[in-house]
């Protein structure tokens, strides 16, 4: 009731602890080892003959799997990175006060973007291994690989255009998020409303740009893995998945930073708000998932239903597990108010959501690339798949924590910081 004493938090500097460094090194080490083994498997092993898809051509599934894994990890961490950026943009646009104290966390996420770009350039190298439309001769009527449906789409699905698009998207994301972060950091010394207003405008531009570019990126990198198949809600579903994962990550960072002795003003009300977002958007993810599933199931048009047939026939267990972890688990665990305010409840829920997001992307990528028979999850090779993911996780953590350690952890110049510090619901 206004009676709270307000002590403006002083600037804080985050130091990467030796424990965190060790964790990152372990992740990177395991990752590099997995990548090396996968590469050896991929580029020394024999190739299998694949029938179907019109023609016969040699496919080395270890190779395909390797590139599919690279795509999965890149897409996953691009999602977290951009999710953080969307979070900071939306905070400006909605005039949110409560989240200002933790704003440096999503800001730090955005510094991974150049690394993400490098990762995607890597994918273009291996594009022909996972994207059927990038195969030799699919658009050439005289070729044995000719695919009439893909040929129809080749004006959009071709590598030069896709690389061009990607570069434009990336440049936009990079410049805009950098500007937002730059203004936010400059605000610490200056105070006032000037930087805040600038960022609000930039946030509007970024959000609009993001909407369009995210939709197209989802089509380019993910939906085109099944190049005959299409769904208009696909990009919304991809957004919902990455957004709930990004919020969970912001939540975990807040808790861990607080436990490490930083941002002490963060309280259960902040957790509650982030928790409500996690809860709501895991339901929203399910909503978009169901919209796509129910409509294709119901209409039962073979060209559309085949997508679910592949996932149902070969990945039934994961199909259900995905729904349980992504929907049922957060729904039941986070239903009460207290759960969203208790660290010991939040940490498992956030972790499960992050795991479920991996699983969700796994189900998006693997059936259309390697198929059930060769999916790593049914063999020891799954260890390699997780290992490759670990590499990117380590890289992401390294970049994000490093840029977090270079700046003042508390946006002391923000005109609304007081609201965040005194946040109490």
């Amino acid at each position, binding site marked *: 009731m*206004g009676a*709270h004493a*307000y002590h403006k938090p002083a600037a804080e500097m985050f130091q990467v602890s030796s424990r965190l460094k060790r964790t990152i090194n372990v992740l990177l080490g395991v990752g590099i080892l997995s990548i090396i083994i996968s590469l050896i498997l991929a580029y020394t092993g024999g190739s299998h003959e694949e029938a179907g898809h019109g023609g016969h051509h040699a496919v080395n599934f270890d190779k395909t799997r390797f590139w599919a894994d690279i795509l999965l990890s890149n897409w996953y961490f691009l999602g977290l990175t951009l999710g953080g950026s969307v979070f900071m943009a939306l905070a400006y646009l*909605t*005039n949110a*006060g409560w989240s200002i104290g933790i704003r440096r966390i999503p800001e730090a996420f955005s510094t991974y973007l150049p690394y993400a770009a490098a990762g995607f350039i890597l994918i273009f190298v291996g594009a022909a291994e996972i994207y059927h439309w990038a195969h030799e001769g699919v658009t050439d009527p005289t070729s044995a690989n000719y695919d009439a*449906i893909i040929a*129809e*789409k080749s004006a*959009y699905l071709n590598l030069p255009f896709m690389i061009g698009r990607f570069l434009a998207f990336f440049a936009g994301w990079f410049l805009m998020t950098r500007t937002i972060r730059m203004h936010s950091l400059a605000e610490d010394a200056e105070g006032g*409303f000037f930087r805040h207003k600038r960022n609000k405008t930039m946030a*509007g531009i970024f959000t*609009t740009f993001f*909407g*369009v570019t995210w*939709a197209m990126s989802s*089509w380019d990198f993910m939906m085109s893995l099944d190049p005959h198949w*299409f*769904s*208009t*809600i*696909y*990009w*919304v579903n991809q957004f919902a998945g990455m957004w709930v994962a990004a919020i969970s990550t912001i939540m975990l960072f807040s808790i861990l930073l607080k436990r490490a002795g930083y941002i002490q003003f963060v309280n259960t009300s902040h957790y509650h708000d982030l928790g*409500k977002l996690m809860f*709501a958007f895991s*339901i929203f993810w399910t*909503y*978009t998932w169901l*919209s*796509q599933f*129910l*409509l*294709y199931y*119901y*209409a039962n*048009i073979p*060209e559309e239903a085949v997508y679910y047939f592949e996932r149902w026939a070969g990945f039934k267990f994961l199909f259900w597990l995905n729904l349980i972890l992504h929907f049922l688990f957060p729904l039941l665990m986070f239903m009460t108010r207290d759960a969203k305010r208790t660290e010991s409840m939040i940490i498992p829920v956030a972790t499960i959501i992050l795991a479920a997001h991996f699983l969700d992307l796994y189900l998006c990528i693997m059936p259309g690339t390697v198929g059930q028979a060769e999916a790593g999850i049914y063999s020891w090779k799954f260890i390699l798949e997780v290992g490759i993911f670990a590499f990117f996780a380590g890289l992401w953590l390294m970049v994000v924590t490093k840029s977090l350690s270079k700046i003042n952890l508390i946006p002391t110049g923000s*005109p*609304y910081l*007081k*609201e965040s510090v*005194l*946040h*109490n*619901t």
Partner: protein
Amino acid sequence: MYESPYRRPLITGDDTTYKKISDDIIIPVEAKPTQWWYMGFAISLAFLALYVWAIGYLLWNGVGSWGLNKTVDWGWDITNFVWWVGIGHAGTLISAVLLLFRQKWRTAVNRSAEAMTIFAVVCAGVYPLLHAGRPWVIYWALPLPNTYGNLWANFNSPLLWDVFAISTYLTVSVVFWYVGLLPDLASVRDRAEGMKKKIYGILSFGWNGSAKAWSRFEVISLILAGLATPLVLSVHTIVSMDFATSVIPGWHTTIFPPYFVAGAVFSGFAMVLTLLIVARKAMNLENYITLNHIDVMCKIIMVTGSIVGSAYITEFFIAWYSAVEYERYAFVNRMFGEYWWSYWAMMTCNVITPQLFWSQKLRRNITAVFIISIFVNIGMWFERFVIIVTSLHRDYLPSSWAMYSPTWVEISMYMGSMGLFFTLFFLFAKYVPVIAVAEVKSIMKTSAEKYMKITMEKEKAEESAQHSHESHHA
């Protein structure tokens, strides 16, 4: 909860007190209606009479008096149904979603927006009822035991889902609205005398403003909001599935559920703005429904309009990308077919006009906002018309291709439904406080201009005191 005094005030004026808030909002309920009210009410009643006449004609002569044919078997009826249901989305969004998001500006507009929701859903419900052809056996749609050896309703049908969705939505909206009304009805009761006191006494259920009642009131509001939020999404989702579960190009597309919901919120907010811009003037509520409120609502219109626009583009692109000949044709036909004018009307009103709200100047210009809000309403009507009629009129078999135009019965029913809507709204504005009095009072200390100035002065004084304190030490 602390709130920065640098935010924009939500209650303007230098003399705001709890008493004044009650007076300003409740006096229109107590006083005799103005001439404007009588005039508006009379016009609404005239349209209502047209409605009754048109429906009577329809029931006497049958659905054949509409312009439908074998190819275009959904026309203005379902267009109007979806249009009205869509409008009925903003109220719940404001009172439920914005409550969960702690948006304080909600307090000034939630009451009337939710009343509007209820009236719009009533208007919507009439259409499928009449479209069924024999409304007197509409109970067949319910899962009731019957004499045909228990021929149960078909739960695989999205039309039946709709029956459940709309009736649940109406019920929950009404109870949510009414629970929120209790404190204000009690307030009217406690100011009134005689017969009026008795009536409002019965209506206010014995509300007494005790801390226990308030505590439960707040919890139940949150719970109902938590229920109404997915509910409001589900309603238009299910309406969209009336179309999207089919195999008709232009209907069968997976983005329909969220895109319909966004469109519903879009049109709902437009209608709220259209009504409130008039009501705030007519009822002298400019201190409570301020330019800042209008500004925020315009932003929501802009956002949802952009979502709708991006859904149009997604549909269009994926139709090309699908490489399915029928999908591609459906969308080209929308643009350049016989009904090209409805498509371009939709695109202009829904995609282009809301983008004008990027300009703050326009968001705070009442006339401009009013005009744009009407454009959005028109655009959203055309959207449903485009979806329904242009998708149907070109069948798979070219021999079945047909055109559709409404008869006077359909047109009168549409205009008449507005009569019903406005009649209900005028009655509401006369007998119920149009703004949630108690809720506005609860934000007075943080968000009224008068008190924000005081806080600002205090903070400045504290800051300079701290400053001089520090410089002393140095």
